[in-house]
């Protein structure tokens, strides 16, 4: 994982990925969730919050296309107390806010840590975008790319930075595969082809293990993050 | 500097010791005549009157009003002030200087200032409030008489509390003003503009939330808490009548009927 080095002028000044807060304590792990519109990012975030909130101090930053839609979904679902959910306006360009100019997201993450106390994990959800949107390493320590079977089973084959480089690829809504005629085995094989050793999880939030495997992956990341403290 | 009229009117108010307010200074000058009118029992009322068709180009008019500690003073005007082009040309200047002492209350709410076509007027309003003094200040600018284009009007409004500037804003409009004044960022074609400022230390404990009034047809106003114990209402309307209605509505919300 890439981490910025401190400048000699400012031992604890963080302008991006420094793993410490200004007071020198280790900051929260930041995991980005990106992916196309409607692939189930917000539902995955909600499920992760339910799965992890009893074990970890966590918070969510959403990057909506229209301000606050996703944040308000999470608020309605009451997956976290409202003060742990922040929406960032993106000026109609969510990928800019998570990749090219991450300053508003960094402010949001830091404000959450400041206002609700030390956090273990912040989930940063991108606004629904296209296959090219990835998180800056200055913002997210790890990123999950969420696609779904209904978006077309050729998406893993097409690749793109999200599919190819995300730390975890989630193929969501597997319960719909039979209805939309998507070939899950082919999707998994194509993803393997594109991603080499990087993990892929096939997920259905409506059946089976639900968000369990993704939650387990997040727990692994948290363990690793703490181990390097 | 062309030789227009120079006049300076002064008002000073202080408690009269019997629960009312005395006016030890009430001094009109030239076209700026002052008259004491009936106020409430604890308050002195003053009207700016006079056969004042100015200010004309070249004139320099000044009003200074002071509400000393504990005084209650309300100043209005008998009629609208009409800025007209002067034969001597050059801009006219109109300065208002208000001071509100601790425990005092000053309402400054003259009738509209109308910037007639061809006129050129520079208005400067400065208000200084001390301690728990309360100021209610209303200004209304009407750009052009009915159906005529605006004159040139520049105004600067500065409000200070205990030496700290809470509000400093200028407006320039009409011929010769910097570009875009009538456009979608500044006035958007509206011809009536008003401000209502209330300074009151009570706002420090009980701040007002921003609020909006009016509509696209009737004009709109925004009530905005300033960075300090003061609130500004900014209103823009198609005409003077609708403007006053907006300011009255916002003033009522503030409990500050001018």
């Amino acid at each position, binding site marked *: 994982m890439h981490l910025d080095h401190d400048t000699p002028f400012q031992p604890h000044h963080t302008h991006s990925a420094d793993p410490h807060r200004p007071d020198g304590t280790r900051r929260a792990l930041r995991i980005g969730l990106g992916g196309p519109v409607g692939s189930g990012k917000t539902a995955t975030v909600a499920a992760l919050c339910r799965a992890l909130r009893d074990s970890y101090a966590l918070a969510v930053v959403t990057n909506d296309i229209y301000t606050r839609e996703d944040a308000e979904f999470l608020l309605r679902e009451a997956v976290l107390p409202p003060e742990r959910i922040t929406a960032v306006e993106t000026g109609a360009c969510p990928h800019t806010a998570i990749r090219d100019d991450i300053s508003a997201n960094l402010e949001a993450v830091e404000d959450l840590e400041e206002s609700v106390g030390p956090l273990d994990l912040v989930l940063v959800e991108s606004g629904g975008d296209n296959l090219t949107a990835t998180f800056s390493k200055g913002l997210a320590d790890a990123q999950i790319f969420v696609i779904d079977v209904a978006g077309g089973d050729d998406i893993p084959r097409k690749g793109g930075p999200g599919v190819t480089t995300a730390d975890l690829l989630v193929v969501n809504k597997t319960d719909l595969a039979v209805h939309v005629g998507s070939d899950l085995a082919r999707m998994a094989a194509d993803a393997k082809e594109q991603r080499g050793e990087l993990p892929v999880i096939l997920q259905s939030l409506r059946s089976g293990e639900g968000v369990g495997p993704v939650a387990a992956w997040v727990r692994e990341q948290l363990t690793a993050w703490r181990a390097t403290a | 500097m062309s030789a227009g009229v120079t006049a300076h009117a002064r008002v000073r108010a202080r408690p009269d010791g019997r629960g009312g307010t005395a006016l030890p200074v009430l001094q009109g000058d030239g076209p700026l005549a002052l008259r004491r009118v009936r106020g409430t029992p604890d308050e002195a009322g003053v009207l700016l009157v006079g056969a004042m068709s100015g200010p004309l180009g070249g004139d320099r008019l000044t009003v200074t009003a002071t509400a000393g500690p504990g005084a209650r003073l309300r100043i209005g005007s008998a009629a609208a002030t009409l800025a007209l082009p002067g034969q001597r040309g050059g801009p006219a200047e109109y300065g208002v200087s208000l001071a509100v002492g601790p425990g005092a209350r000053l309402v400054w709410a003259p009738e509209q200032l109308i910037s007639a076509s061809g006129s050129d007027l520079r208005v400067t309003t400065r208000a200084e409030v001390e301690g728990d003094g309360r100021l209610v200040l209303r200004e209304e600018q009407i750009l052009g008489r009915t159906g005529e284009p605006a004159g040139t009007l520049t105004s600067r409004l*500065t409000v200070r509390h205990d030496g700290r500037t809470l*509000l400093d804003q200028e407006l320039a409009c009409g011929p010769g003003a910097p570009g875009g004044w009538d456009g979608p960022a500044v006035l958007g074609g509206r011809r009536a503009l008003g401000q209502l400022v209330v300074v009151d230390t009570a706002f420090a404990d009980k701040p007002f939330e921003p609020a909006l009034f009016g509509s696209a047809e009737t004009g709109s106003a925004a009530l905005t808490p300033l960075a300090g114990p003061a609130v500004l209402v900014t209103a823009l309307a198609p005409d003077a009548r609708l403007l006053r209605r907006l300011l009255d509505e916002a003033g009522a919300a503030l409990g500050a009927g001018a």
Partner: protein
Amino acid sequence: MSRAALLVLADGRFPAGGHAHSGGAEEAVGAGRIRDAADLGAFCRGRLHTAGLVAAALAAAAADGTDPLALDEAADARTPSPALRTAARRLGRQLMRAARAAWPDPALDALAAARPRGAHQPVVLGLAARAAGLTPLDAAHAAAYESVSGPATATVRLLSLDPFDATAVLARLAPELDQVAARAAEAARRCAAEGPGALPAASAPLLETGAEAHAARPVRLFAS
């Protein structure tokens, strides 16, 4: 230092959060006041000579070495809309982050410590320009340009306006941008002798009232 630092500072891709702000253009579009490139030109011209001039003067004064906290207070007094004050401070904080990474400087650190929630963006911009070795006039140019480039970019997105038309609007404003920057730098010089009261305070009522209307909208693309 390098004059080209001005290009870095004024680049629309400088990562300081500007992309999420429309400078009042979203509200003006929503209210029907900007419908085409001509309206955009009138909007930008009005904004340049009001909010733009004030921002340019604050930036120039900060670049000139005037006490940034006094300028921050002067910016408050020139920004009656709390929505705009909040936006200016958020943008100031975001710019502070980028500026400290780009041009580390004790003056930036000191202002960041004194205003942890963010100082007004033009004040930070002026200090950043100073840290980059730029002049007050350079800082004024950057602030003046930002006051119109943000709305132009936002309007391209909001109205699907032809980007060539939007760029032409900015190009045609260039001579007035120069005038505003020069006026701002002159005011900054007077500010050094007379205090922040010498800085311009040009206001745009529709930007102020529109910012409050925008903040009250439940659905919007831009933060301001």
